């Protein structure tokens, strides 16, 4: 079992996801990047789960997937509303929270 390879893959995916979240301006792409981050975590969970022969890892991964589905539902709703109100899904323009 080569745990390292899984962890490296997950780390790479995680970095790609973070990069996407921080840099992309398109709302949909940001959401997709978040999905990549979550899946990086899932890979870690499953990898460690199978390493320790514990089913908890897989169970947690399933939970993450379920939560991610809910999260994407809300995220898309936000993007949709943002588009309706501003005719744009550019995240760099959304700065109404400015203090």
């Amino acid at each position: 079992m080569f745990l390292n390879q899984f962890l490296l893959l997950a780390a790479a995916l995680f970095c790609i996801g973070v990069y996407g979240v921080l840099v992309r301006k398109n709302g949909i792409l940001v959401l997709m990047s978040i999905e990549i981050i979550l899946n990086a975590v899932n890979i870690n969970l499953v990898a460690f789960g199978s390493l320790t022969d514990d089913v908890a890892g897989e169970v947690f991964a399933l939970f993450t997937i379920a939560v991610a589905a809910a999260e994407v539902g809300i995220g898309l709703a936000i993007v949709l509303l943002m588009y309706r109100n501003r005719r744009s899904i550019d995240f760099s323009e959304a700065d109404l929270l400015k203090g």
Partner: protein
Amino acid sequence: MNSLLASMAPLLAEAPTGPPSVTNDANWFLENAWLIPLLPALSFVLILFFGKRMPKKGAEIGIAAVGLAFVLAVITGFAWIDHRDNFEPAGTGGEEALVIGDDGLTSSDSLVLTAEDGGEGEKGGEEEGPVPVAVQSSTQWFQSGGIEFNVGILVDGLAVMMLFVVTLISLLVHVYSTDYVGGDRRYTHFFAFLSLFTASMLFFVLSDNILQMIVGWELVGVCSFVLIGHWWEEKPNSDAALKAFITNRVGDVGLIVGVITLFFAAGGGKTFDTLLINNAIVRGEVGKTALVVAAAALMAAVMSKSGQFILHTWLPDAMAGPTPVSALIHAATMVVAGIYMVARLYPVFYEGMQINGSSINLLATVGAITLVFGGLLAFVQDDIKKVLAYSTISQLGYMAMALGVGAWTAAVFHLFTHAFFKANLFLGSGSVAHSVHSFDMKKDMGGLRKFMPKTYITFIIGSLALAGVFPLAGFWSKDEILVGTGGWNFFGGTGGNGAYTFHLTMGMIGAALTAGYMTRCVYLTFHGEYRGGHAADDGAEAHHGDPHESGPRILVPLYILSGFAILAGLLNMPKGLALWPDSWEERFGHYIEPLGASYFPGISHGTPSYSLAIVSSLIAFAGAGYAFYYYFVKVDRLAKKTGVSLTGMPNGVTTTNPVARVGHKVLVEKYYLDHLYNGVIVAFTKGPLARAAYWVNQNVIDGGVDAVGRASVKSGRFVYDTIDQGVIEGVVNGSGKVSDATGEELRHLNSGKVQNYAAIMFAAAALLAGSFIILLAL
């Protein structure tokens, strides 16, 4: 020592966790008192979902539920009386003993609760007959880390008393509200939250563990927030609601700290159960330091919830809510929660504040200061509800002081009687406001006794009871508190738990102030000339502004409350004065006070004396008499003579064009009134005796009275302006400003761009991960 005392529960060794694990023997109503909070809670849900579709817009659901709860509470009360008198723990079984079969603090049989453990429970001298045994039934809510979190009810005299008060007042307020807020834009919503408010308080009262108490406490806070801000469209109302909520949050921090301290120090980190914690403290198993911390932290909670001095500022502002809500808050549901908490967790305070044998402590002193300052503030208010609000603060000060000096029963009894007359006064002020559409006594009231004779009579009864006039309710409870201070050593009558002379003095001053400000309030509202109805100036609309008596749904609650305000005091007539049969004495104390029970400290009672009762009555009369002289005689006369504004006088009555209310008859009316008043004054001064008395009045008494008056008004004004508005508001505003400035600096970080936030978050996470790795490597 009573033999049955020793025969308490060998704790059910294997804790049955199902409901209800104790009290196989108790009355069904005592075991199932959880129905009482459940009914209004159900009513809340029903009103929210179906209220709008009901013929009466949901009011009937609320009234039915609370009415049923009231009936249950009364039955429970009788069941408790029977239980208290006749309940004998079975010699062997003891299943009905005090405690839930919980794993307990240490080992299974260490929880045997006997009266010997209860310290010197014998001092009270009423140890014949059974010891009070609380009825507890509870069920497991959840379990975590080996700690059971229970939810359950604890029924004893204190809880039963509160059940009665809360359901009764709430029922009357419900009925009253159908008229008072009739046609309101959120009528259904209002009734839903009245129900929830009632349910929360009942839930809080019946809590059998301190964790559950927090839940009830917070629910009460939320409901008060919603109801104070009922008319939130107007800014001051929503501000007042926020202020009430946020001020209470300050105290809640104290509550949480106190509960956590108690959980670890007295509950052994295993139980939140109120009785177990109280018992551990009574047995002296808890360290003094922990108790001092717990008592001080809980004190903060009491100060915010029960409007004690320096955290009381939300209470007068809370008058922005509808009047029935004010009545509910002040009489039954909100502000007494703090007092109830102290009474429920009394060993914490008794030991933590070292009440016994001391002559000063935090709780008593805060109460004493509150009662005098609150009373002074009541003198300078123009808003009738604010007078009553400051009066409540003052009376809560009495209760806190009584608890602080060890007069537990007196405090609880004062809570009981105060609920009736304060609800009466608030609903009375609401009745007045309903008819003149204003709360301003100086601008819009005056002379209302002619228009609202029934409201006037009930208001007078409430005022007399509040002022402590024999034999109305307030007299008995206030006198008992003064006795309880133990500071009175003249002509018989000795102290209970220590010589609290300072507190006795403050209580006396408070009595005079109470009588004085209520006299002022009655004068400004009901006597003199009607000053409202400004619309009358236009002539045509004259009759529209005329005040009118309220309808039966407002008056009947007032009658009922007046009845209680007159009679409630007779429930606890003091011992040993030989004016009445022995069997009438201290009925209230006998059924309510758990003295001798293992979860209650061995307090001792003061001995009542005639001299103290007479002196305190005289002081109250002096206060009332002074105010009476000032307003009913002096101001009144001057008003009649000049017929114009009296603002030049200290705290004078502004009589704004008193006669213009009936259109074109203005002149005739004015003449008629002048004539009448002239007649009255002439009659008054006609005889030589009257003339002589008048001369003395004018030349001798007036000077002194005026000086006293100016001084008291000035000191009241000073306290209000400097301490209340200056220092305290300053501190509150100061803390606001500090956070404002901090926010100003931090807001630059707040670019509003989500991705910047995300970058900061990831950077921080990376930093943490890095430092974690470095730390691990070290």
